[in-house]
């Protein structure tokens, strides 16, 4: 009987608004292992999938930002728990996609979990550490507090396949933004597997959206999209960097580049709390005080 059984092969889907959707374009791409063996197919996102992702990320950001900092931390921590639970599957996905050795894949997944926990801790600490009470020369209580900027788009580098994705998503969403992530172009499967893990965490749909496909098709639409408030580019591709800088200069959206080398994502360089500041707005209030 087993000889007759056909494998049930999966087509990895995009993660938009908490749902797994096929590309609006109907396109798919094959994902191959480094040795050239076909692993599985995955959906190839079009500019309209980007549009749909931003359209669900906008209302998601509003609801997410209203949750208390403590609750956002708990939810991110829960995502770390779910990743821990599925660590073995994640390790296997990284190993078969990238050809990484088992120890290397283990190191990446472990660090990804730890990094989620690390950033989860910042949710209810960032405002205290980065906000300020400012001395002013009038009868005012003057204070500066961070507020989320809204919808963030982030481009992950090709390698590593998982760790940068989490190191980009966590600092962006922890203060109440939502994010549209463009996964590694070379190794998209681990990112799409991570989406399946996120779907079982308590993160509201639309807060983290993951697209896969070809970066070059999406860049001009990312830069020109008036409903994206900030772009974080970790692709490491010089052309992409220049195109995004030129595009965002026109509409004045925030742009941050993270040109890290592959090995740097495993260091403290990728746990920089100033990354959180890249996607918040600091607002200063003047509150009159008597006498």
């Amino acid at each position, binding site marked *: 009987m087993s000889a007759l059984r056909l494998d049930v092969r999966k087509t990895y889907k995009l993660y938009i608004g908490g749902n797994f959707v096929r590309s609006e374009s109907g396109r798919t791409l094959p994902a191959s292992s480094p040795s050239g063996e076909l692993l599985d197919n995955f959906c190839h996102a079009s500019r309209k999938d980007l*549009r749909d992702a931003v359209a669900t990320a906008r209302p998601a950001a509003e609801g997410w930002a209203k949750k208390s900092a403590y609750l956002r931390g708990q939810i991110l921590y829960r995502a770390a728990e779910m990743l821990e639970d599925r660590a073995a599957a994640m390790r296997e996905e990284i190993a078969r996609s990238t050809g990484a050795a088992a120890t290397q894949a283990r190191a990446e997944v472990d660090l990804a979990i730890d990094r989620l926990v690390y950033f989860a801790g910042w949710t209810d600490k960032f405002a205290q550490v980065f906000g300020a009470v400012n001395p002013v020369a009038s009868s005012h209580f003057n204070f500066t507090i961070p507020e989320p900027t809204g919808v963030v788009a982030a481009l992950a580098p090709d390698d590593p396949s998982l760790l940068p994705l989490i190191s980009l998503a966590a600092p962006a969403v922890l203060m109440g933004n939502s994010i549209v992530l463009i996964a590694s172009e070379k190794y998209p499967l681990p990112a799409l597997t991570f989406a399946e893990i996120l779907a079982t965490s308590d993160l509201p749909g639309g807060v983290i959206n993951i697209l896969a496909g070809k970066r070059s098709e999406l860049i001009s*639409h990312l830069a*020109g*999209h*008036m*409903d994206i408030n900030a772009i974080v580019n970790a692709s490491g591709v010089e052309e992409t960097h220049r195109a995004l800088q030129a595009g965002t200069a026109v509409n004045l959206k925030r742009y941050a580049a993270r040109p890290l080398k592959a090995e740097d994502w495993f260091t403290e360089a990728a746990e920089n709390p100033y990354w959180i500041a890249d996607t918040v707005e600091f607002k200063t209030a003047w509150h009159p005080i008597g006498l």
Partner: protein
Amino acid sequence: MMQQTLALPRRVHSIRDTVPTVDQVTVEERAAAFTKRSIKTSAKLAGLKMAVAMMDLTSLEGKDTPGRVAYLCRKALQPIEPKYEVPSCAAVCVYPNMVRHARRFLGERSVVKIASVATGFPSGQYPLRTKLEETRRAVGDGADEIDMVIDRGAFLAGEYARMFDEIAAVKAACGAAHLKVILETGELVTYDNVRLASQIAMEAGGDFIKTSTGKVQPAATMPVTLVMLEAIRDYFFATGLRIGMKPAGGIRTAKQSLAYLVMVKETLGDDWLTPDLFRIGASTLLNDVLMQIVKTVEGNYQNADYFSLS
């Protein structure tokens, strides 16, 4: 009891007997097919501008003020900066008490018409005398068009003659003003009822038939609009009279508005693709259409924050 049934006026009785029934499955499938058309670039831009020109920009809220109505009129006159060459909306649609404020803002002659809901909007459960008074006052205050609601209670109770007479009486009270008859299809339960109510409304003198008040769910849907369009088509073949159509409520996206235009074109033809015979009643649709127009012209996706409030 038998005597009572027979006592229905002969004319109205014949309406019920001659109106065809509607095949639910076919009409829903056919309506869904209209959403599959691919409309891109210049055709899309032309379609979107047409949708704006056929829009009744609507505000029907208890919190409406003269200032808000003036804002509505301003937006209907010029929806967006002139460089995008977007036409004015067909009309503003307001409550009777707001008609004079709209008239004061728009002046005596205006490309934007003033439509007023009337006859005990949205329920229609009021005496005929006050309904007629309301209609005459709205017209006297300057309304070009009256959007009346039918008495759904009367219709569902089988009192077709009463419904017919009410519409005819309101039409007489309208004078020169155009009459749109709101069927409130969300409360009529079946497509057969929608078809029958459409026929009665057309025969009683309605210039337009309109799906909904926007206060009841479901409001305008594609299948229900198709049933009404087919009623208009058959009425045209029978009498040579062109009756207008106005879907209202629930049309919120530019894509939906294009699907409705396709449906009108493929059911009634190009003759009906004019604000004189087709309107879309909406409050939030306009900004989505404008965002799509700007997107098509400029090439980048837009953000609602950069558009005036709707």
